[in-house]
């Protein structure tokens, strides 16, 4: 049979027999290119961190004219991590009690809720952390181990490690996807940029919230709105990318081959 008469090359294979046609050269090229970008970003991390923190400081200086914000550095693993030093405030006993009551009511409402149980149970856990925090500040306020400065360092150092891990993982995930080489590079850079940029914005937001509404929300902000959120952006962008690639693959029969 002549090659052009092979029907298997004209029919989109059933999903059980589908396999992506591979260009080994391009696949290896994708891995190398993404790895090089990763190394490049990693080596510029100190500069990126410095600039990001400077931006945050400038924004906070504008927002709080009378407050003092300083940039300090501490060594964390292989990084010299810059972070913002400032002061915050402890909650009053009355505010802690009010937070406890509101959180408790919210917890009951979420517990009773029967719709979108997965989301309500997740929110329940966040509210539960807030209840623990309120109780802590009512009874053991003097033992709270963080200041806004130490939390600021903790948050940034955790984020730095997270960004590095996340870029490494998403590099491994994006490289083998059967898409245009340059598109993959763009998506990889976009994901890397988004986690860093949005990470700094979240850092800023958390400092503002803690400055405005006291340390009582520190545990929930760290465990609920910390590095987990980075994964939400990254997975969302990755999902949209895969969706786009899938749609284009379905239109191109020659991108697939049959399992043999």
């Amino acid at each position: 049979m002549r090659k052009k008469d092979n029907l298997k090359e004209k029919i989109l294979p059933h999903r059980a027999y589908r396999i992506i046609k591979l260009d080994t050269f391009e696949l290896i090229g994708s891995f190398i290119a993404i790895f090089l970008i990763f190394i490049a970003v990693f080596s510029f991390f100190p500069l990126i961190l410095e600039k990001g923190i400077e931006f945050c400081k400038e924004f906070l200086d504008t927002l709080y004219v009378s407050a003092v914000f300083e940039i300090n550095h501490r060594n964390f693993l292989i990084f010299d991590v810059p972070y913002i030093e400032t002061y915050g405030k402890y909650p009053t006993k009355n505010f802690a009690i009010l937070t406890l009551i509101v959180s408790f009511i919210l917890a009951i409402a979420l517990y009773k809720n029967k719709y979108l149980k997965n989301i309500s149970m997740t929110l329940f856990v966040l509210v539960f952390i807030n209840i623990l925090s309120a109780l802590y500040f009512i009874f053991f306020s003097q033992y709270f181990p963080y200041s806004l400065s130490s939390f600021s360092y903790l948050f940034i150092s955790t984020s730095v490690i997270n960004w590095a891990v996340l870029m490494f993982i998403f590099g491994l995930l994006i490289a083998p996807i059967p898409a245009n080489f340059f598109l993959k590079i763009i998506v990889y850079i976009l994901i890397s940029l988004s986690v860093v940029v949005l990470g700094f914005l979240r850092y800023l937001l958390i400092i503002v919230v803690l400055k405005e509404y006291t340390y009582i929300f520190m545990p929930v902000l760290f465990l609920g709105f910390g590095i987990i959120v980075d994964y939400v952006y990254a997975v969302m962008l990755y999902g949209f990318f895969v969706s786009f690639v899938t749609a284009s693959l379905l239109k191109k029969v020659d991108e697939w081959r049959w399992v043999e």
Partner: protein
Amino acid sequence: MGGIIILILKGYILTVAGLCALYAIRHLIFAYDRLLGKQRIFYGDIIDDELPSVSVLVPMHNEEKVAPNILKLLVEADYPRDRYEVIPINDHSEDKTKEIIDEFAQKYDFIHPLHRYSGKRGKPAGLNDALKMVKGEIVLIFDADYLPPKGIIKELAVNFKDPIVGAVMGRVIPINADKNLLTKLLDLERCGGYQVDQQARYNLNLIPQYGGTVGGFRKDIVLETGGFDENVLAEDTELTYRMYTSGYKVVYANRAECWEEAPEDWEVRARQVKRWSRGHNQVMFKYFFKVLKSKHLTFFQKFDGILLLMVYLIPALLLLGWLDLLILFFLGDINIIAPVFVMLVLLLFSGIGNFAPFYEIATGTMIDGLTKRVRLLPFLMFNFVFNGVYITLGFWQAFLDFVKRNREIHWDKTERFREEEVVE
């Protein structure tokens, strides 16, 4: 003393994070294998005129909403009638299931009903009773809410032409995937779990799992090894490990697709997850050391077998890990743990239990051609707490079953949602 407690808390986090990383790598290998590796085809393409004799068992308890659909489809199945029988197992039904089954049995002589109104309830007990009357050498099982296509009996049965094959498993696809967020997320999990996870385990000669429905086994092996253990809720997982530790293989037949009804309600899903977790963990307690000692398994099969046995233990450990983190946070001792915390987050998106991680799902949707549903991937994060809580409850029950032998086991039936006839 305080220092030792903190050391233990940190050590625990480190251990859990290490396990999480191990699972993340395992699933990454599976995703790569399905996308880039050589695929192993099941025996579905064999054309053979001497097909084995087959008995199809359909366990039913109050299944009046779905029973007519599956019976009608099994009647229309493409399989030689002299080698084919259908045994609907009516297990203590109080609705019209009995009447529906009897009506079909009157019309078709290859339908041999089994009505059970005494003895132990539940799927394993029902299957054991049915095995006593089975005529076929191969037993295939379909849950009552499944909609088997015409050729599936042949596609599953033909695998048993190879004498080393002890069991076969087909692919499950939700028919009501578009119903709501829950069914859409379940569809994603199924897609990753079957198209990628099961297929990759089959490709790599590891442990593809027999899932208790849309699959089957050799009658003789099960009878010779004592039938189904009526105190185990996951008789499917138990059978998988029994097959492998007895020197037989499980085939994953990716092409043998069958429609199922996914739970549409979170309460129903919660009960299902809890039951699966209890059953799977019962098997873990029973087979952990048997797998390690087995002479029939290779090193990698043992390694994967142990990881598979532990999939419903990890969420319980992970949930404890988060509690541990919370304590360390309030003690002000979290700094050094921070990088490890990252690993825990990884597993958040990896899904838990035997549900597929986000990158496995993305690979599955790409191969399946699901263009829009994959955009829901970030919502998987919200399943972490839900699954974690109910899997932990199931693990706790299994632990009590293990400690207090002879505990009474109740089969918790999954509620059906079908409102209209889906078979014309």
